[in-house]
């Protein structure tokens, strides 16, 4: 979590990745366009976007569920997208795990918790004996605040928050280095969201993990993320470290997202402005838009003229801060 960018070790790179799907018609549906960013070891990198933004598609591409149509994904210096050997594929599975959005849908209802949590252990034979496997499962359950006695239970006997923690235990037992968490709290009741967030933070610190945290609103992300990428209709419009993105959001879409975070304060809410995102106010000249670095580590998706505008805005804000 250090701020010295130069020294930070890149664990995963998404290099100019585009992902498209056949729609059955001639036209292909492009879900992600030219996504390009690095994730550093030990950080929580948030990918924030609304439905249809391509955030889940991109997250799943890292797990090799969706193929990239262009570009490549590099994990610890090795390409993991496209055709790779079976051994490398197994290596990706061991090191990159996923936490799903809907705990009810992502657990096998006909299997006991013991099987659900052991599944990865079985697949890679990561245990010495039956007793060792049981001990590992017990440990994994306790790590997420569940009890060893839960092993013989079935998923439907648990509450939403407990099920989500089973999902976390199942991923963590593999001792992964990288976790893709796809909206891990949006399907949960408000009162238990906090518990799952705390747990993720705790495990990250204990196990030296890196997270790609996919979310649809900025309020959660501010609490958990070190750096944030905002994605809109398949295009990444802004990347910055968390503090910067909240202090000096540049892209109008980011500003609109930020303004739509509801605050739990009636007095503030009454006067708070909501800013609609209006793409027609952007540069309509047809100039090429790309992700450019405006300050070290702060990228914004812009044409030349837009970039100048952002630069001007930034400079005046910096002036004011002084």
């Amino acid at each position: 979590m250090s701020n010295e960018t130069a020294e930070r070790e890149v664990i995963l790179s998404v290099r100019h990745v585009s992902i498209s799907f056949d729609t059955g018609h001639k036209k292909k549906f492009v879900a992600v366009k030219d996504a390009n960013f690095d994730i550093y070891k030990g950080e929580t990198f948030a990918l924030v976007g609304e439905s249809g933004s391509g955030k889940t598609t991109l997250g799943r591409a890292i797990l090799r569920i969706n193929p990239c149509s262009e570009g490549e994904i590099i994990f610890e210096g090795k390409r993991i997208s496209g055709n790779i050997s079976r051994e490398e594929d197994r290596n990706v599975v061991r090191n990159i795990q996923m936490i799903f959005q809907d705990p009810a849908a992502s657990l096998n209802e006909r299997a006991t918790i013991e099987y659900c949590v052991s599944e990865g252990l079985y697949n890679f034979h990561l245990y010495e004996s039956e007793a060792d496997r049981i001990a590992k499962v017990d440990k994994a359950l306790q790590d997420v605040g569940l009890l060893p006695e839960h092993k013989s239970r079935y998923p439907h006997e648990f509450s939403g928050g407990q099920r989500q923690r089973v999902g976390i235990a199942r991923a963590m037992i593999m001792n992964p280095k990288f976790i893709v968490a796809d909206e891990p709290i949006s399907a949960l009741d408000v009162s238990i969201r906090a518990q799952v967030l705390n747990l993720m933070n705790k495990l990250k610190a204990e196990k030296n993990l890196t997270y790609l945290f996919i979310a649809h609103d900025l309020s959660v992300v501010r609490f958990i993320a070190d750096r944030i990428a905002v994605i809109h209709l398949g295009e990444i419009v802004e990347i910055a470290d968390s503090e910067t993105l909240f202090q000096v959001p540049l892209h109008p879409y980011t500003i609109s997202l930020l303004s739509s975070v509801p605050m739990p304060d009636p007095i503030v809410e009454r006067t708070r402005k909501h800013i609609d995102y209006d793409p027609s106010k952007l540069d309509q000249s047809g100039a090429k838009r790309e992700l450019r670095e405006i300050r070290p580590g702060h990228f914004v998706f812009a044409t030349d003229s837009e970039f100048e505008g952002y630069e001007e805005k930034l400079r005046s804000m910096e002036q004011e801060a002084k």
Partner: protein
Amino acid sequence: MDETRNVIISAKDVEVKFRVRDKYLTAIRGVSLDLYEGETFAIVGESGSGKSVFTKTFTGMLESNGTISKGSVMFHGKDLTKLKTDKDWEGIRGAKISTIFQDPMTSLNPIRTIGSQITEVIEKHQGISKAEAKKQAIEMMERVGIANAADRFDEYPFQYSGGMRQRIVIAIALACHPEILICDEPTTALDVTIQAQIITLIRDLQKELGFTTLYITHDLGVVANVANRVGVMYGGQIIEYGTVEEVFFDPRHPYTWALLSSLPQLGIKGEELFYITGTPPSLFNEIKGDAFAPRNEHALKVDFVQEPPFFKVSDTHYAKTWLLDPRAPKLEKPEVIQDLHEKIKKMTDKGGAFHVE
């Protein structure tokens, strides 16, 4: 607040039971609520707290295995709990009391045009000619913010985006100028940026048409935005209610404290967020004492023995917790939500994380 405002609908000690297989589940355990004309009342609660079930008694839309076993809901001198058939409800449900649901697709018929679905409601309840109904429908569509409404009149729901569909659902709900609009999580299925637009739309329409709004939501941020008064529901009961300022800035029930404290907006990076352990009670079992007690770290022994009554905090603010009993030990609300307004003001003022311009 104007003290002399008229009560438009009054629920008294409502109890709702569901028969699930051979067991009875008490979903609502004695809820009373008066709605004042023109106000916006928000009911907050988690899933299973009974917030939706309770408001369904206002429109007679309980699932067929549910019954109102006790209590009354008085509306214009009529006890709504006594109405049985669809014919009894005619002129009330969809006309005087309308509902907007979470998923707009469930309220719209996918194989009929948007226009015909709005005109149908207008014709049915107002008994006017087709041409006149169409004129009104287009007017309504414009009012809810559909650009070139006349052209889009003959389109089908799938040609509309999620936000647009919810606007149409609102148009249908308001087509008969209802006195009460029930919004059941109207923005939960929508994107965050659309959510704000829909909330603003409902508020603007309320000002214009003067109906009373009853919001049901789990999102305290939304509540702060829309409500004049708030009721917090837990385990089939309202456990605290008051004006929105009272509930946010001076909450008294430990559950309200917990809900507010666990909001990620208030979280400080690198520190733990407050969280509530466990799960809401199963309503299949009889609940003894305070339903929240097993999850409440501030629970008193008495909470496990005896259900607390409502204690008065102010003329408008009541909370159902033994902590307000004079015999109870003094307890401050958690640190995170002390000086809530100052904290949030700082966050949204210049230089704060949620400041926008």
